[in-house]
């Protein structure tokens, strides 16, 4: 391989390197007709080259963009690589985006070709094709239902690959030309454009260069000691930075095998069969898994239930300590080992975590209990904090420094600064080049001296180098005293108690913090049953003095932990009330994705807020509600208000507050 570059600064070069040094090892798997099919690195290399040749014959050239639409399928990942071989720029698009959103991205990215999964995506692209003047051809992976379509501009990916192979066979110079095209690719070229999901306005095209992507991936591969023996299951959206980074980029750098699920519905089974060694999931997934395990345990026979409860208890006591390498008495180790054989091992096997060496979670705050549960089973679950603009990692927890309440110290070679306004800004190896065709918003996000604004407020925990993210910077308020008030941070701390379902905190430009609480009907109802507390409705249970006592105890604990943290001492909850009804999306109080609509609630419950700040012991409220059948009614109630104990801010916390 004399033509091999000495240093691989693009993904196609990495692919060629992997084919050369580990050609016989598995690069990719997918279950087809119920049987796992494997492609080795040399096979992938051969297919991608032929595919690239085929795409070249369809007119794809250096600098052109090609949309990639669909779920995690090998041919779509090969489309990314094949485009990069030609120096074209792949633009992955979320498969579930509606035609309108897709039209915006495809139009904005000025795509020339589109590689899509199936008929559904072909239909979507064709329905907007009149707006995509630059679009010349569409290639698809799965032909079902497409037989009668007009195939002048539509091609099966298999046919494109075959055309490429035929061209190589006919004309030997074509292969050399493609090699030259791969060698011509430079590290500073744009390697991919990832569009943000667009939760805040129009989605933006984040341009990432090959050398920066590879530098970032090399750092984290070293950080987590990943190598060619690792295995991942690519089940997260292909267009999301997490999938592209964790599976695609790290896979090419480390040379490990990436498996694709058979279909989006079979992920759990596939996980179990593949047993990935590296795994990522948002907290919600871990929560659902735990709930499913618990529900199934309820249905198990009594001896099994007792055994499960006993050993989960053992795991709670010793599991995390063993994982962290702390000293544990011999009896504890023995019990834990027995538990591993009887409970933890089989449980991990069912969940597909048997071989998991490194697991990550990110995206939102994870409850400490949930986090500990998985760690106590011996799973090395860690947190990271990242962004598309950083090409993922900003911070990550190294083995042995795992905490539920921080996102960890800085990832290798990342620099972070906290601005005067409390916003986190960073510089990282994988940092983006700018937003595609949007210099205005690039300028908004990047400081002139090259730092990227995250839009998140956070701080470094004193005494450790761990970063804590508290809220979106624009949501963080200040009390009248000037103390920091991050509503979501306070609310999340409360919500980690199973008895608490929803919390809305107030305090911006006020003298102190107050909050509304929604109790969790299942958890509190269960408690009421066990303690012989009788009630007829949510409203009655919510107003019960013992329930108030329980929530007050939670608030005091939250206050104590806030007091111990720097800058958070002022955000302690002074007064709270339990709402007489559950917040409901039908009443407009929550969004359809169950997020609190703060402004709307503040308006609707104005009398209650007034009472919270007037010092009254109770307040009357009547609100209109929408019943499930659409009828409207009014609920009136007299809601009690409780005062809570405020703790003095801890000394070092107060000191940093002064310093800040």
């Amino acid at each position, binding site marked *: 391989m004399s033509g091999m570059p000495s240093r691989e600064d693009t993904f196609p070069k990495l692919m060629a390197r992997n084919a050369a040094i580990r050609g016989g090892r598995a690069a990719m798997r997918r279950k087809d007709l119920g049987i796992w099919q494997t492609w080795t690195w040399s096979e992938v290399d051969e297919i991608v080259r032929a595919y690239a040749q085929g795409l070249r014959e369809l007119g794809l050239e250096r600098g052109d963009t090609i949309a990639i639409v669909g779920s995690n399928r090998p041919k779509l990942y090969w489309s990314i690589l094949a485009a990069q071989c030609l120096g074209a720029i792949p633009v992955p698009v979320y498969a579930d985006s509606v035609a309108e959103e897709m039209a915006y991205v495809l139009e904005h990215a000025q795509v020339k070709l589109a590689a899509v999964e199936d008929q559904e995506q072909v239909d979507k692209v064709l329905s907007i094709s009149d707006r995509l003047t630059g679009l010349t051809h569409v290639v698809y992976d799965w032909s079902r239902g497409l037989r009668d379509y007009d195939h002048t501009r539509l091609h099966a990916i298999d046919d494109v690959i075959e055309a490429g192979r035929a061209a190589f066979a006919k004309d030997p110079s074509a292969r050399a030309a493609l090699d030259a095209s791969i060698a011509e690719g430079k590290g500073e070229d744009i390697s991919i454009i990832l569009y943000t999901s667009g939760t805040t306005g129009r989605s933006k095209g984040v341009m990432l260069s090959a050398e920066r992507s590879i530098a970032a991936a090399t750092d984290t591969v070293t950080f987590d000691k990943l190598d060619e023996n690792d295995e991942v299951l690519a089940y997260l959206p292909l267009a999301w930075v997490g999938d592209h980074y964790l599976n695609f980029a790290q896979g090419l750098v480390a040379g490990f095998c990436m498996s694709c699920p*058979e279909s989006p519905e079979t992920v759990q089974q596939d996980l179990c069969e593949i047993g990935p060694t590296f795994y990522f999931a948002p907290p919600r997934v871990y929560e659902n898994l735990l709930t499913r395990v618990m529900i199934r345990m309820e249905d198990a026979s009594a001896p099994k239930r007792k055994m499960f409860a006993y050993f989960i208890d053992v795991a709670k006591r010793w599991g995390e300590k063993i994982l962290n390498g702390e000293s544990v008495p011999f009896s504890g180790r023995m019990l834990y080992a027995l538990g591993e054989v009887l409970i933890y091992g089989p449980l991990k096997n069912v969940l597909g975590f048997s071989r998991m060496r490194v697991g990550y979670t990110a995206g939102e705050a994870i409850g400490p209990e949930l986090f500990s549960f998985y760690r106590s089973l011996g799973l090395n679950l860690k947190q990271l904090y990242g962004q598309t603009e950083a090409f993922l990692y900003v911070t990550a927890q190294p083995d042995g420094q795992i905490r539920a309440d921080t996102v960890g110290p800085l990832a290798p070679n990342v620099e972070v600064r906290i601005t005067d306004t409390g916003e986190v800004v960073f510089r990282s190896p994988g940092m983006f080049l700018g937003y595609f065709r949007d210099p205005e918003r690039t300028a908004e996000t990047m400081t002139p001296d090259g730092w990227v604004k995250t839009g998140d407020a956070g701080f470094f925990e004193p005494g450790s180098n761990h970063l804590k993210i508290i809220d979106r910077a624009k949501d963080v308020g200040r009390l009248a005293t000037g103390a920091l008030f991050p509503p979501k941070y306070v609310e999340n701390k409360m919500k980690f108690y199973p008895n608490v379902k929803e919390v809305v905190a107030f305090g911006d430009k006020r003298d102190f913090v107050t909050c509304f609480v929604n109790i969790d009907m299942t958890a509190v109802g269960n408690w009421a049953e066990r303690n012989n507390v009788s009630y007829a409705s949510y409203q009655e249970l919510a107003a019960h003095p013992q329930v108030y006592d329980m929530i007050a105890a939670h608030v005091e604990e939250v206050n104590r932990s806030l007091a111990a943290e720097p800058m958070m001492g002022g955000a302690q909850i002074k007064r709270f009330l339990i709402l007489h009804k559950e917040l409901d999306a039908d009443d407009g109080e929550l969004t359809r994705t169950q997020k609190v609509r703060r402004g709307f609630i503040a308006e609707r419950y104005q009398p209650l807020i007034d009472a919270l700040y007037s010092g009254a012991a109770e307040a009357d409220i009547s609100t209109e509600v929408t019943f499930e059948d659409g009828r409207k009614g009014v609920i009136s109630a007299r809601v009690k208000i409780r005062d809570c104990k405020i703790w003095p801010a801890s000394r070092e916390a107060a000191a940093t507050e002064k310093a800040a």
Partner: protein
Amino acid sequence: MRAPGDGHGTTAGEVLLAVEGVSLSFGGVKAITDVSFDIRKGEIRAIIGPNGAGKTSMLNVINGFYHPQQGRIAFKGETRKRMRPYVAASQGIARTFQNVALFKGMSTIDNIMAGRTLKMKTGFFWQCLRHGPALNEEIEHRKFVEEIIDFLEIQAIRKMPVGKLPYGLQKRVELGRALAMQPDLLLLDEPMAGMNLEEKEDMSRFIIDVNNQYGTTIALIEHDMGVVMDLSDRVVVLEYGRKIADGTPAEVSADQKVIDAYLGVPH
């Protein structure tokens, strides 16, 4: 995969099944009276009509479950003698049922494999041993079944007992079992009864795809007029056991007799 319907010497547009002057009665009850129509190869043919019009009886006559007292049925040009349903099945007619008729305790795979029974060639002895030719044959059939599973997107329920599945998925498995027979003519008895809108749309898509991909001729009974008008090439309308209209969806829906039959005649 060999497309069902290939290699039988019939060409597109040719009549696959002809029903001529068929009458069927149960004692004094006349279910079908002198009905004639044909099903052409490669088309989607709908049979519609108000409740009790004789639609399901018609389907039962076609697949040999009932024997008409009068009239003649010709399948692939051959006039049919009195016969049993399994003969119809071996000739290439498969069906699904109005009420799901699957083996509830068996998995999706096993249910669809059951549709391959008529294609099994190795003897009982080999099957018992599950070795040699029997194993090879099973692998071949399993491959075909897996292709159907892929086609119908039911990979996730491959090994689940079908009794535990929601109704919409059971209907899909039943379609899968009928497809496993590689039928020349597929009879669907109310494939969308009791489904919600999304399930109906999915099922419509599968019916069109089966017809398109495998070239399978389909005759279906359906109550949802929107579905019928969208899916079918030609529609035959029955009322009180008699044929009152026959033609394209547009022709049929403009027919005064059909409108009267569905909406009632003002008195």
